[in-house]
């Protein structure tokens, strides 16, 4: 049976920046085929690495949902395929220092996971351009407007075979600089 993990990364109560954990609770309310699991991936990249390393059956596909500020218009949804590649060692080490001292970051998770070789062939990153970084429980109108699309994309990614998925732009660790 194909094992798929939908993982959300992000702080709570930070409006658009919380899209991962907020939509995860909505995703949990829907029925999923067996083999599709949902989890927060907020509990520390090192702990996640160690858990993945001890899994008897590794995941076949990981879908990471997060907010990433990249200078796009707020509410832009980008779907990319993690293709690996790492920044220099000093940068990886900074990521680990941040990870063990509590920073929550999808970039750190991707890089540290890559360094420790935990990722399966198929890792998809669904990231949403957040609006202003501010405290609150609601999304901005721009992000609120795309939540339905995000949920659909996640579903498509989780249930479809790779043969029916389109080609996505690759995402590499080199481009994720602190």
């Amino acid at each position: 049976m194909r094992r798929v993990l939908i993982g959300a990364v992000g702080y709570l109560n930070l409006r658009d920046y919380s899209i991962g954990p907020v939509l995860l609770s909505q995703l949990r309310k829907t029925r999923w085929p067996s083999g599709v699991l949902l989890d927060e991936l907020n509990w520390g990249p090192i702990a996640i690495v160690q858990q993945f390393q001890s899994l008897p059956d590794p995941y076949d596909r990981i879908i990471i949902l997060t907010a990433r500020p990249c200078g796009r218009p707020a509410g832009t949804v980008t779907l990319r395929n993690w293709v690996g590649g790492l920044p220099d060692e000093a940068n990886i080490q900074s990521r680990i220092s941040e990870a063990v001292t509590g920073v929550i970051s999808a970039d750190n998770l991707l890089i540290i996971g890559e360094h420790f070789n935990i990722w399966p062939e198929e890792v998809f990153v669904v990231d949403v351009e957040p609006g202003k970084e501010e405290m609150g429980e609601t999304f901005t109108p721009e992000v609120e407007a795309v939540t339905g699309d995000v949920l659909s994309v996640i579903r498509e990614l989780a249930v479809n075979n790779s043969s029916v998925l389109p080609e996505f732009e690759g995402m590499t660790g080199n481009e994720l600089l602190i």
Partner: protein
Amino acid sequence: MCFKNLPVEFDQQGNATLLKNIPNPYEYETVSLEGEQDKLKELLARNGFIKNVDFDPVTRVAGALAFHTVADLENRKILSTNSMATLFRGYEIILRGRDPRDAAYISSRACGVCGGVHATVSALAMEMALGIKPPPLGVLLRNLLLSIEYLYDHPLHLFLLAGPDYSEQIVTMTNPGLFEKARNTSAKHEDMHGYSTIAAIMKDLNPLSGKLYTEALHMTRVAREAYVLIGGKYPHPQSVVPGGVAATINISVMNEMYERIQQFFDYSKKVVGIWDDVFDFFLESNPDYEKCGFRPATMMDTGVWDRPDVYDGTYENMTDWGKARWATPGVLVDGELVTTDLQRLNAGYEEFVEHSFYENWNGQRFSEDPAGIPLGPNHPWNKETIPKPGKQSWRDRYSWDVSCTWDRMPMEAGAYARLYLTAKAQELPESKFIRSTGHSLQIDIPKSTLPGGTFEWHIPETWNTFERNRARAYAIPYSAMVCMENWMMAMELLRQGETKVSTPFEIPKKGTQVGVGYWGAGRGFLSHHLIIDDGVIGNYQISTPSTLNAAPRTPWGAPGPYEEAVLNTPILEDFKSPDDFKGIDILRSIRSFDPCMPCTTHIMMDGTDKMVTREVTTCACGIE
């Protein structure tokens, strides 16, 4: 005599009174930093070899710390230092007006490493305020959780954050001659760690690839696994509550925990052997390393690990239950023990904001503590947090940290203070594995794969960068064996059928209740001062170890602990030109405190909607 500077005296019965005939007993003079800065400006203008050297951010520390130095690179001296906490934490404001039961869960988020101890200290403050006495098993389980938290924290610091400073990768870059010497220097404790030379240890301290680095990552996992058996999750436990813990504990859980704890027996021996060898090598290779990070052993600690038969949570009995702890609380001034009394520690503690981005507050709600000891207006129970962001200036305000003092002296905090005070005070109640001799702490570690034996940490003659980290290495067997002793006591209670783990409580809807929680984080001293007014939090003040260590100047101009330690640090690094200068001796000194600037939280910048969730760079260029 307890206080030399505060206007409080104690009679022979221990009753405290304010000194008489002093018009404004707590008044102090604020000394201007202008003259010092003018002099530095002139030196910088006249001498090309005197440079501003900024570390911004200081990496491999938790959170947002920046450090400014003026260094004389020709004479290899540091002329001036400023420690900057670059983020506002704001929990004091977040917690005001909330249900006190929220405090443990919210304050836990103050740190992504030691959230468990914040939750515990919050629970202790509530216990004092509301008169809650936890059952014995609740106290023991809390001790277990907190000793395990240290077993997570200390390896993390020693091998992931500070360790790389002593690795082949760094030493070959900053002191290549020293590494050559390390190749030919035998390791004294090969029997404990398996490395024949110092260079072999340094190689395995290399970040990412070194075996000691990756082993430490693994050991943090072992500790986390043990922690969550009671805590539910880490670093923000769900089961730490006022009155004990909210978890179901049985023999199976305890056995699973033992399976993890015992892995630290051999690991403790190995860690102690490694750091003894590495630090002895540095200090024997160049005696000037003794001066790195030097400051007098002036420090304080809360003590940790309560005795279930003594702890009752009250302020009235705080002196007794404090002294009964497995780690003795107290204050050291220049290596001399001043007090082990938690009430006196509490009464002497103050915070000042003259060089911080806060406004001074008016008024003094409490003129004395519940035991009648006079308190000043700068005591945390009297403090108000009023943020006042502004221009950064070495002459005026430059940090979001505050100046913390005990008896008006800057105090250092750390896991090492726990060892130092316990070793010095000789007040440690009888323990199966730990003994205090007045000059050392002896720790019996059982046989595992490696032979068992007694490991002894000696109070060092000089307090410096290396001794801080050495003591932290010994804090691992110390924590492991206190953990073991508490595990045995908890098992005995379970055998006797004493399974109650918490005491229920209610929060009065009317009136004022006051409490304080004192317990060390992995990095040392931590306090939460709580005032409940009519059922909600009226005031909440958190003082973390890095609040003490990263403190800016006092109003009267004394440097904070990081500032003082770096000021005393000679530059021993090899460099050909200022561009090659890495500042390794400075960084080692700062990191030896295990800085933890709790900032991985959601912070609002005044006057904007901007939120900050991770480390920021605060450009120090052009600051005067």
